[in-house]
């Protein structure tokens, strides 16, 4: 049975001092229901994705659910670190595919700015195996990716300049995205001269700490006909995988095995053997610039080790062979953990509908690729959407 996306939305990302977590979630829910042309009554199941380790509302699913008008339906709370959004969409998808629901909504919501930066770093640094990593060595989330950057640079000659080019592209796109946290362009010099956060990563290699929400409404093919919705983006395939919690249990630091495995599964199910030719738009998980470079390789846009050069080539810019993160990426649009994966669905659906305005890509296959990573490759989801 086919499952389609019938409504999407995304809040403005950034520092959202004006809303609580449930109010922020409702912003997205309202807009997604309007987009689908349905009401809460038409929804069978709500899935609330929220990592919320920085929040005061330790069990946010029920307050979010009540505020959004879904009391009595669900909620299923989903958490997969930074891949919580894709995990929530996957949960909604499987509930429909298994006929437990006809219509399900995936809500991704995160408030990250209510605590100070040092606390935020201490929470992100626990995204691994606490006793063996943070407790002794003070790992931070940027630090995990910085270790990958050090290995990638040593093995393949990837440069700080290539990483900076990913940031410049992200900001160029985000400047045109009204939902983005940072709507300003930066220069290569700005990026290269920014202060070191965790060597070799500098300020502009890192996504900001943002608040945000997004929602996606999924429905069965049967229900879509019944509702009379004719503009549908279908979920063509889904792949998922994971890797070890402990960095010391990994086989390599120049890529994310979970991404490779998730992509294999999604590509096999969608019949994709050359994503650059078969996909019109890709959203990849660029929480740090090195993450986007590794994603190019792990998703087979280029060969392992050539991600830095691929970033330089311009092929991932708007108008390139495979435009990547035309919405500004996590890097410049922002990365409110659980909202990110759901917001990727929003950005892909907008592109596939041809509604992306100045950021619109050329549609040949009417196919979009989503890549959402949790932790440092602890989780990975790859999804293919088709209109």
């Amino acid at each position, binding site marked *: 049975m086919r499952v389609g996306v019938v409504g999407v939305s995304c809040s403005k990302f950034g520092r959202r001092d004006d809303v609580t977590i449930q109010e922020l979630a409702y912003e997205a829910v309202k807009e997604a229901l309007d987009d689908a042309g349905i009401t809460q009554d038409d929804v069978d199941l709500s899935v609330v994705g929220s990592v919320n380790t920085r929040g005061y509302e330790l069990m946010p699913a029920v307050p979010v659910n009540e505020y959004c008008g879904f009391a009595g339906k669900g909620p299923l709370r989903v958490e997969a670190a930074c891949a919580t959004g894709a995990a929530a969409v996957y949960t909604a998808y499987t509930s429909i595919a298994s006929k437990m629901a006809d219509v399900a909504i995936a809500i991704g919501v995160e408030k990250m700015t209510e605590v100070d930066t040092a606390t935020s*770093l201490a929470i992100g640094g626990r995204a691994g195996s606490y006793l063996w990593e*943070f407790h002794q*060595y*003070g790992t931070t989330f940027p630090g995990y990716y910085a270790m990958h950057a*050090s*290995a990638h640079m040593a093995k393949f000659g990837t440069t700080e300049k290539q990483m900076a080019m990913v940031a410049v592209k992200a900001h160029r796109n985000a400047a045109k995205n009204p939902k983005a946290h940072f709507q300003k362009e930066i220069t290569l010099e700005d990026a290269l001269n920014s202060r070191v956060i*965790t060597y070799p990563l500098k300020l502009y290699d890192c996504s900001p700490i943002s608040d945000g929400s997004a929602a996606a409404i999924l429905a069965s093919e049967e229900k879509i006909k019944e509702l009379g919705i004719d503009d549908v983006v279908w979920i063509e395939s889904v792949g998922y995988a994971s890797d070890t919690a402990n960095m010391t249990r990994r086989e390599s*630091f120049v890529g994310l095995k979970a991404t490779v495995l998730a992509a294999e599964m999604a590509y096999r199910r969608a019949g994709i053997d050359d994503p650059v030719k078969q996909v019109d738009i890709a959203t990849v998980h660029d929480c740090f610039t090195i993450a986007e470079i590794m994603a190019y390789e792990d998703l087979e846009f280029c060969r392992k080790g050539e991600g830095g050069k691929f970033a330089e080539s311009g092929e991932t810019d708007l108008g390139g062979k495979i435009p990547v993160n035309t919405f500004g990426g996590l890097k410049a649009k922002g990365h409110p953990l659980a909202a990110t994966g759901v917001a990727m669905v929003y950005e892909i659906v907008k592109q596939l509908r041809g509604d992306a305005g100045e950021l619109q890509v050329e549609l040949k296959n009417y196919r979009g690729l989503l890549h959402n990573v949790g932790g440092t490759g602890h989780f990975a989801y790859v999804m293919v959407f088709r209109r």
Partner: protein
Amino acid sequence: MFIESRKLEMLHKIPVVKTEKYWKGLEEGKVYKAVCKNCGEEYYPPRAECLCGGEVEWAEVEGEGVVEAFTTVHTIPAGFEWHKKPYTITIARFGNVRVMGWAENVKVGDRIRIKTDKDETGVWKVYFEVV
């Protein structure tokens, strides 16, 4: 307008009964891994049970290792403010296991030796020294 939340502090008591050998070992300058007597799997961090069901024994991580990845943390997380300057987290390979530790002036490919020491907060851990 904001309302400040009530303060919540959590201090956990983490059981290390099954890995006590490891934590005591650090205080004696030894870094232990776990090796399965049945299937040969080596675990670092060590664990008292092998997934094959076999019995596990403790073996020291010794000799020279090779640096595979590192980062020097300049933006320091809460809990490590006491370390007034940047610190370098390193992952090095020793045969079949990889170990995390603190090091100074390392780069990928460097040969390093393992040792243990206590930091200013009294926590024992792994340090690497470039050979």
